[in-house]
């Protein structure tokens, strides 16, 4: 399948953390998976307080649609270029991808569970 070329003049990224990346070039398959427990807590916090295994959200099966889609896509590329002057990104985090170029297949999954522990002021 004919692919276009991305011409980017300037990229400005402040931070890339937690298994994310800035990808220049072509990629065939991207499969980012992120599992997050967000704990907002007053008072002391202990390491290993909350574990992934304790919560079913992290073990539930993701039921993706069956991949065989009967869509015929015909692409006519009259100008095989994509021009971007400048792109400014503050943060790329928790297994995200900033792709400059082609990325054929993407199967992304993210699982987030929030906790808030508040102490009563008596």
């Amino acid at each position, binding site marked *: *399948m004919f692919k276009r070329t991305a011409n980017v003049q300037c990229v400005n990224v402040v931070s890339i953390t937690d298994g994310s990346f800035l990808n220049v070039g072509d990629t065939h398959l991207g499969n980012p998976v992120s599992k997050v427990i967000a704990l907002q807590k007053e008072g002391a916090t202990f390491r290993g307080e909350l574990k992934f295994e304790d919560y079913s959200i992290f073990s539930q099966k993701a039921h993706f649609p069956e991949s065989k889609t009967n869509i015929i896509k015909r692409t006519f590329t009259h100008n095989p270029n994509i021009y971007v002057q400048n792109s400014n990104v503050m943060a790329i985090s928790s297994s995200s991808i900033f*792709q400059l170029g082609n990325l054929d297949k993407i199967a992304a999954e*993210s699982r987030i569970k929030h906790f808030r522990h508040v102490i009563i002021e008596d």
Partner: protein
Amino acid sequence: MIMEVHNYELHVANVQIDAIASSSIFLIGDNDSIVLSSFFDTPPESYSVINLVPLSPVA
């Protein structure tokens, strides 16, 4: 379904993004298939008001 795409000149001057987070993708280029799945859980019991600091981890 037949989908016909005609790509002509594509110019973007500025892109300003605060954050790309939790398995998100910012793509400047072509793509064939995207499958996304997301689980998000903030049940009422996740907000717990406690009067003393728990010594053992809260189960």
